[in-house]
């Protein structure tokens, strides 16, 4: 008795492809829209208001690089957030020296985007694997 696994392969391919796009979309959006906007603001590092705007944008974390989860490399982020939250709340000025710390936050965001896009690629490869299996299954069934 021979089982036809075509349907399983078909739905598997579709499911992982959809999941891949869901994982990848936040990264693509961040890379194409949010990060360039932040970089533009950081480029004007003598303007306190622009740096403040950049910080507020960075304060909204990337879904793949949330501020509530730290590894060893990101441990110092918490102190940057505490200091800058206070500074915005007390309406203090940002200086060009602060741009360095804002770039660290941007780097964390970029790493989140990379993770998001790499996860998408991994899922697309899984989907391709499913499509290959589907093609082989159909070929075998025809024979």
């Amino acid at each position, binding site marked *: 008795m021979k089982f036809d696994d075509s*349907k399983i392969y078909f739905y598997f391919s*579709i499911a992982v492809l959809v999941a891949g796009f869901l994982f990848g979309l936040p990264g693509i959006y961040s890379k194409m829209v949010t990060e360039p906007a932040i970089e533009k603001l950081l480029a004007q590092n003598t303007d306190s208001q622009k740096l403040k*705007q950049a910080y507020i944008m960075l304060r909204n*974390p990337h879904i793949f690089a949330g*501020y509530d989860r730290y590894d060893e490399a990101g441990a110092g982020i918490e102190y940057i*957030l505490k200091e800058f939250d206070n500074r915005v*709340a007390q309406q203090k000025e940002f200086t060009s020296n602060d741009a360095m710390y804002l770039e660290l936050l941007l780097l964390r965001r970029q790493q989140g985007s990379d993770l998001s896009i790499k996860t998408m690629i991994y899922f697309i490869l899984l989907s391709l694997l499913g499509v290959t299996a589907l093609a082989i299954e159909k070929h075998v069934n025809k024979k």
Partner: protein
Amino acid sequence: MIKYIIPLLLVVCAGCTQYVDVGDVEFSVQVVFQQNVPVFATTYTITLLNTSINKVVKNYTATVAIVTEDKHTLKQLTVAADKLLPKQVQQITITQNESEEAIKPLFNELEIDINEVIKQQEAALVLPEGMVKVEKAHYETVDIVAYLQEVGQ
């Protein structure tokens, strides 16, 4: 098949949504007894910590009770904080003059010899966690980004 895939996708989506940390406040209470005959000047330093990284705690009020091992309330203190930014620590100091009779149960619970305090003129200690109970805490939480946008303009 599709009826299995939809729940599976929902689980994957739920798994990747951002974990939202509800604003929360941690407490510690330090107490300093100063002998100031015939009363004791007692200073309670209450340390509040907003444990959330994404939420601002606003209009915080709470009653902090100092309790015995069998949960009998020895003392009640009311604390209030206008706002606590994420991971921010705020200290509130409450000083009260208390008679020897009133302070005695607290000394007994802490196993402090009242005569020793009178002799040394001062005793300072951090209350054990089990003796501090937070009652009637009221506060609202605001997302940090919304808050910064509001004040940053």
